[in-house]
């Protein structure tokens, strides 16, 4: 077999689509027993240039890579934020890092939300657990003072298994009293001190009063949630084309080559992770 190895130039490295850029962690903030927020700065404070809903591949040399959704709005330009659940090899190693440490970044990858499609529309967000961070990128884009007037109502539904899993507590506290959005929260199981709504996130949907013709909904959460959320939204009268989903899949390369994220003939890392449900409803294996 042919082999030739010697150290290559930076130019060659920049051409290689699998080579990450080394970035700085400027802030590491524990959000819940399992989730931590990482604020990342690319070399020179260069903007990531992402769209809400896109993801990056996060690298730790010696551990590997994992796809992580970007949870900050593109309007914050010098850094970006990732919220990571400690659930696999890489994410567990990430949780041992502190501000000042370095990580590898590739991306942004995939297709996110095109906010221009939501102009003038009421938007219902259905965020289950770790599905909130990707949606927060879009929520904060729409809440931006310069843009808020471009959209109709912003309705955020957020649910976790128990109150212990809540994240973005300060930010959500500000949503409680905000005139800019309507916020509803639920837990699957109440624990001591919880006096709010109890029930899976889809139980929040029937009580919403919606201007159905002018509403779109956006869903992100654990795979099991989608089918039920879609059913509940349809019961309110939303058509499939008014529903957007952000799908989780295993993504090793992020550039449509490695095959792991494929749903039938679709590479989720290229054509998603955000999809209009109307366009993928007939795609077998898309929604469990």
């Amino acid at each position, binding site marked *: 077999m042919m082999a030739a190895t010697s150290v290559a130039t930076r130019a060659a490295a920049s051409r290689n689509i699998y*080579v990450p850029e080394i970035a700085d962690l400027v802030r590491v903030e524990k959000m819940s027993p399992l989730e931590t927020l990482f604020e990342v700065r690319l070399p020179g404070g260069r903007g990531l240039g992402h769209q809400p809903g896109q993801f990056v591949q996060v690298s730790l040399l010696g551990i590997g890579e994992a796809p992580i959704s970007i949870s900050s709005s593109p309007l914050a330009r010098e850094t970006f934020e990732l919220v990571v659940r400690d659930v696999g090899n890489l994410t567990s190693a990430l949780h041992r890092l502190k501000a000042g440490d370095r990580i590898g970044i590739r991306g942004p990858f995939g297709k996110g939300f095109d906010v221009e499609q939501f102009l003038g529309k009421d938007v219902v967000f259905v965020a289950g657990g770790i599905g909130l961070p990707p949606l927060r990128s879009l929520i904060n884009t729409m809440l931006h003072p310069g843009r808020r007037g471009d959209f109709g109502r912003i309705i955020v539904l957020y649910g976790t298994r128990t109150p212990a899993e809540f994240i973005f507590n300060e930010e959500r506290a500000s949503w409680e009293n905000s005139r800019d959005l309507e916020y509803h929260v639920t837990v699957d199981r109440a624990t001591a001190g919880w006096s709010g709504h109890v029930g899976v996130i889809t139980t929040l949907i029937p009580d919403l009063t919606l201007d159905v013709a002018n509403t779109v909904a956006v869903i992100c959460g654990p795979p099991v949630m989608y089918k039920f959320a879609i059913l509940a939204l349809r019961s309110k009268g939303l058509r499939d084309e008014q529903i957007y989903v952000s799908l989780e899949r295993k993504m090793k390369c992020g550039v449509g080559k490695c095959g792991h994220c494929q749903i039938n003939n679709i590479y989720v890392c*290229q054509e998603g992770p955000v999809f209009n449900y109307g366009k993928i409803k007939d795609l077998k294996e898309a929604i*469990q």
Partner: protein
Amino acid sequence: MHRAIPRAKVSEAVSLLSRKHQVVAAVPKGKSFVFAAVTEPSLVTLDYPSTILPLKKFFLPPTDVIFTFDRKSQEIAVPKGWSQPTVFFGIHNYELQGLLRLDHAFSSGVRDETWLERRRDSIFVGVTYEPDACHFADSVGIPTRMKDGFDVFLTRFDDHYRVESLTDKGKSIEAAIKETLVDCDCPGDPVVHFKNALRQSVAGIRETFHGAYNHPVWKETARKCHSCGTCNVCCPTCYCFDVDDQIVLGTEAGSRVRTWDSCQFLDFTKVAGGEAFRDKRHDRVRHRMSRKFAYITDATGQPFCVGCGRCVRQCTAQINIVDVMNALL
């Protein structure tokens, strides 16, 4: 009158080519054959049924270092690209068709320059073959007379291989071996017969697949399949890969490598949260077959299977992809 290489002069021709180029050809390995960089021209054969692995191993090695790194300094070093001029000598036409399909995969959408650079200086000398019980290239639109992509094409006639130079590179190859060539009548193309064959036209394959999602053949095949991944490894058009970091024990040095992967493995789609999106074996069997005959075909118009028959020959559960396809009819 044509020019031809007498059978007895094949190793001499390989020796001549080796003066200027690396030559890759089929050589025996136990009872089988493998493609290998030639070190002993007398071992090269133009009469072989198939090789264990296809040519993809030269451009996407089973373990391919993407970069090396030092954990302490966080320095990354990317290996220098290859574009070693290589003559692939005595290649069956479906083999080259497999590479051309991978060229499409690695150049469409985001370009994988690593693959494309490695492919740049390849020269292909094709040869006809006698189909065995497993080949079915004819059924997927690759008749034995197809010479697309070759620089030189050799057609076997008893003791001679008729030489046709098809490109400028091919002419220089012919010139390099001219002292081995003789005149030969070698008329027409030999008639070949495929014993393994699809019972439908290439155009019909796509139609067959669109409506076959719930066909019982997937579960029937899955009952035999062990999900061992052999079909992926030996397939000329399977290119899915995994990416892993490997550390040199006791040091801060390591490398990020891509390794061949298999869509037949349960873990292939499994995310960190534990969900696997094709957790049933029949889902995985159907996925592989659909990649060969529907998903990519819809985009390119060509099956992503080249009919080499390796997955039939090497399947550890004796599954014949042609039988599976024929059951869909």
